[in-house]
């Protein structure tokens, strides 16, 4: 919401300072997004007095003016305007100044005579359409005074971030009302010459006003509906004061009738619509639901299809207005209009919201109807609008306006207990103060028993229960007026989430020195990454139309990004939520925590003691990944019971869009099982010596080291303390299709010294089992 500082000044009857207004509003009312001075593009324009006007020597239509622009010496300026006169003051743009629209004035010769600047018209200054001549200034300001200081067009726009619950702040009166509290001022609307208009005539849902039939067939959509008929108006440009008001808040001046309705809109937050009586068939104004398939061409020239969920304003035959949202070109006010029908309505907020969403249009009016306007303030707004139109455009009213209000409402009351104010705010607030604060913004508080009965003004639809009034008390008193010292509290009943503890432990381990992984946080959107991927109904783009069901695809994209940035060594991990469709799309998808790792690049950072040839630095290979996989499994699953990531991705080399210089890419993904860390128990340190034997075995092609490991351990029993792979050998000296693997076996008895013979007995047993079960035998030396 943009409000004009000058407009607020006129309501509060005192000068204001933009920053100060902004600060007061922020502390007590609503955040302010900015204070923007307008007409800043006129900063370089000065007031200049023309001392002498001569005929241009080379052009009949041009004159040569000697101008005092406040400088040391008068300047010569070429001027083409017929109305330039010696002795008068005009806006002057000196050479080098930039005018609105970005035109930079150069000092240049015009028909052979050098001109040192330009005397400006209103149009050239962006202030109006009048280009009959240059703008004559009624000012005593000395020449050289900045134009903005000499004329009352300088203003500041105060941009208020009005929340959805405060429609009352969508107009100058509402903002002024709040400011008046902290400024100890009063709000008075500027007087308009009264036109002795009569009070509206209230009817149920139909009636006739000055020959126009008015009927509300949809009282749900339009609970209160007023129509006035004004005949014999003269449509013309608005007077400067009105155009300036509207321009000050960024609104275009259109004509006196439309501007008058807009003025009332921004003054008291009542949307109004004026239409041309001559264009209304009947003449009739009918408020009803649209019929299915009905169409209307709205003001923006778009044909729109209507539904029965929408309210329309029709003449005798067809819709003229989508109620509260947008009118049509057909019945719009034009220069030829003489008789107008003026509508002042309350439209049901959710109806308006659904309509403008369905049609994809919104307007200043729909924005306000959607938030709820002041139904009780309508007669006053209507009266003011009529007065303003008749003051600007003349015309007469033969009959009072009609007010169709089938179910009149009174103002609501909400009870407030003073004790509850203190109970919630933590500081007692005396009843007198509560009454004073509330009445300052239009609430009427009256004691009733041990409570206050607070009458809610019509412009505050947001206040519906006691706590809303307590908020009013707190904010009007000022949040800063409450203390902020810590008081004792009771501990909560909710335990820490085990998932958070698990994730924390995993992160700590993965970033530890030796692992050296960097945590990534990727966007969980992408193309479908599996059969269970969950589709987003309204994605930002087709490439981001699914939620991830795996982390690896997103991480691979991040590796590719790093490659594009020229980074060769990339070690990333991510822990996060993945989604899988479960049952129907209307069910919440299943969410799982996953851990994924991607590795590519050098195994170690380069060091000067390495070979000087950096290319010899070893890159990470599958065994680096295997180490991380074992680590990840240990951390994430807490056991050997590995759940490979969805779609069997598990771990291994990855395909990616890699540049030539990139190292191979490896990755893994595991599901995180949320569990406390496995308990640790102290093992007594060995007190007996160990016996160590290395065995070299020949494995047939189909036998894995893992299988041999299992057999050896089973036979080794409790005396086999460790079993470590020392070496793998393929090649000469071995039968084709076999390989040699060497293990180191460490034997130890916990309670006695193990003899060589006992150890060898166990070893022989292990070897026999390996031979029997797997056809693995000892390699001949």
């Amino acid at each position, binding site marked *: 919401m943009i409000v004009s500082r000058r407009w607020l000044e006129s309501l509060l009857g005192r000068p204001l300072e933009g920053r100060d207004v902004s600060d007061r509003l922020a502390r007590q009312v609503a955040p302010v997004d900015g204070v923007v001075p307008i007409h800043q593009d006129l900063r370089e324009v000065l007031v200049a007095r023309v001392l002498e006007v001569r005929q241009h020597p080379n052009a009949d239509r041009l004159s040569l003016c000697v101008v005092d622009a406040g400088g040391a010496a008068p300047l010569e300026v070429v001027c083409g305007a017929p109305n330039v006169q010696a002795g008068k003051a005009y806006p002057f743009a000196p050479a080098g100044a930039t005018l609105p629209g970005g035109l930079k004035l150069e000092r240049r010769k015009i028909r052979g005579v050098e001109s040192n600047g330009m005397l400006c018209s209103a149009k050239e200054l962006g202030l109006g359409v009048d280009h009959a001549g240059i703008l004559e200034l009624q000012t005593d300001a000395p020449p050289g005074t900045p134009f903005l200081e000499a004329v009352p067009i300088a203003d500041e726009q105060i941009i208020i971030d009005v929340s959805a619950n405060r429609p009352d702040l969508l107009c100058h009166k509402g903002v002024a009302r709040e400011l008046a509290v902290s400024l100890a001022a009063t709000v008075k609307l500027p007087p308009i010459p009264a036109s002795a208009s009569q009070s509206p005539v209230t009817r149920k849902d139909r009636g006739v006003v000055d020959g126009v039939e008015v009927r509300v067939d949809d009282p749900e959509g339009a609970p209160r509906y007023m129509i006035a008929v004004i005949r014999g108006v003269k449509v013309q440009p608005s007077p400067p004061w009105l155009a300036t008001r509207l321009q000050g808040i960024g609104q275009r001046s259109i004509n006196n009738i439309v501007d008058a309705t807009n003025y009332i809109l921004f003054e008291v937050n009542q949307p109004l619509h004026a239409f041309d009586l001559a264009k209304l068939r009947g003449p009739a104004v009918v408020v009803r639901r649209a019929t299915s398939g009905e169409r209307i061409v709205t003001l923006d020239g778009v044909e729109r299809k209507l539904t029965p969920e929408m309210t329309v304003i029709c003449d005798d035959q067809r819709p003229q207005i989508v109620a509260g949202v947008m009118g049509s070109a057909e019945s719009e006010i034009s220069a030829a209009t003489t008789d107008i029908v003026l509508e002042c309505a309350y439209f049901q907020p959710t109806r308006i919201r659904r309509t403008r969403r369905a049609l994809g249009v919104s307007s200043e009016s729909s924005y306000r109807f959607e938030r709820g306007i002041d139904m009780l303030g309508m007669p006053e707004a209507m009266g003011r609008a009529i007065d303003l139109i008749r003051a600007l455009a003349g015309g007469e009213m033969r009959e009072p306006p009609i007010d169709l209000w089938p179910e009149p409402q009174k103002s609501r009351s909400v009870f407030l207990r003073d004790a509850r104010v203190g109970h919630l705010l*933590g500081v007692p607030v005396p009843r007198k103060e509560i009454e004073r604060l509330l009445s300052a913004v239009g609430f009427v508080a009256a004691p009733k028993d041990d409570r206050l009965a607070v009458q809610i003004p019509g412009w505050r639809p947001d206040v519906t229960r006691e706590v809303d009034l307590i908020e009013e008390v707190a904010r009007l008193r000022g949040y800063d007026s409450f*203390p902020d010292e810590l008081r004792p509290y009771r501990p909560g009943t909710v335990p820490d989430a085990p998932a958070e503890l698990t994730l924390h432990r995993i992160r700590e381990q993965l970033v530890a020195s030796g692992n050296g992984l960097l945590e990534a946080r990727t966007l969980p959107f992408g193309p479908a990454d599996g059969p269970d991927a969950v589709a987003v109904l309204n994605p930002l783009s087709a490439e981001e139309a699914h939620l991830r069901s795996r982390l690896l695809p997103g991480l691979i994209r991040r590796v590719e990004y790093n490659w594009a940035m020229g980074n060769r060594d990339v070690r990333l991990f991510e822990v996060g939520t993945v989604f899988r469709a479960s049952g129907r799309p209307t069910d919440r998808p299943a969410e799982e925590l996953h851990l994924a790792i991607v590795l590519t690049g050098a195994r170690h950072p380069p060091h000067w003691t390495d070979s000087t040839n950096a290319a010899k630095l070893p890159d990470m290979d599958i065994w680096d990944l295997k180490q991380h996989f074992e680590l990840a499994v240990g951390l994430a699953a807490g056991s050997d019971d590995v759940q490979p990531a969805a779609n069997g991705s598990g771990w291994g080399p990855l395909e990616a869009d890699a540049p030539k210089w990139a190292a191979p890419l490896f990755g893994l993904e595991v599901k995180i099982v949320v569990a406390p860390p496995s308990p640790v128990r102290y093992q007594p340190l060995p007190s007996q010596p160990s016996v160590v034997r290395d065995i070299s075995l020949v494995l047939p092609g189909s036998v894995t080291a893992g299988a041999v490991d299992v057999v050896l351990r089973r036979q080794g029993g409790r005396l086999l303390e460790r079993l470590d792979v020392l070496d793998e050998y393929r090649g000469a000296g071995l039968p084709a299709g076999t390989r040699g693997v060497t293990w180191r076996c460490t034997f130890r008895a916990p309670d006695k010294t193990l003899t060589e013979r006992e150890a060898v007995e166990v070893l022989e047993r292990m070897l026999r089992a390996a031979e029997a079960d797997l056809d693995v035998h000892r390699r001949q030396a």
Partner: protein
Amino acid sequence: MSDLLAALNSLRERLKEIPQADERRLQELKTELLGRKAGALTDILKGLPALDPETRRTIGGAANALKRDLAHAIAARELELKRGATALADVDLTLPGRPQWRGGVHIVTQVVDEICDIFKELGFTRVVGPEAETERYNFYALNFPKDHPALDAQDSFYLGGDVLLRTHTSPVQIRTLESYPPPIRIVVPGRCYRRDPFDASHSPVFEQIEGFAVDEGITFVDFKATLAAFARRIFSPTTKVRFRPSYFPFTEPSAEMDVQCQICGGSGCAACKQTGWMEILGSGMVHPAVLENCKLDSEKYTGFAWGMGPERIAMLRYGIPDIRLFFDSDVRFLEQFIR
């Protein structure tokens, strides 16, 4: 004979090289001087039997002594190298040490942890909730009116029916009230989603930290005190804070908390739009309708709640100009925040 003596003397000169030799050079010297097959000294000793006795005695004595000295020096140097007790004078210790890859937790995770840890000291436990939610949990149980403009700020990604990606962590307020009795004191970090285009200051996916306290007798003063204490902990003990009116359907009174601008210190700059303040979090007293929606007596229980964006706090604190940097995962960015 003098030739042989000269050869021995020049070999003795080589003794000086030994204390400076690195491991590889030392092995070369050993082979060159004492090698069993082609060592220089070995050659001389091999030739001794062919000499006349006197020369043999003289040369033999000198050669054996030199052999002993060389062997001794080499052994000493080997030991020295083994111990790593290299003479400092011989090594340029300004050369960099042998590096290892270093890992790091994401800066946003770090900020989340730091914030949660501060609230842990204030008695809050850390819980989480699902990222896909129903409208009931995300909106209506939180007192969002149906078909209300308040929903406009919550432009959501829908998955089907009334299932959407949560637009804030506040649904966990409802889930917690449904599962635990007061007193409740929780912080809830987690991912949230809004249909904002991805630009320098908006991300469709962002982290939020919810806070929520409900008990008998909690007041606006407790609310202000808790959040002001937090602000002074995360910024500095002298940081000024202010609370301003705001609107959230699930809090009443609602407030926004500002802290003194961390860039200009409050005098006004471009970052704080000349106000001297920076908005840190949205908050308020729990709306009684939220408690009532969870079958709690809103006369008896009161509480407060807040939500804040760790990405925004990280950007303010570390001067990060673009929220997309958090998601790019450029290792040069991630490495800056290793600690």
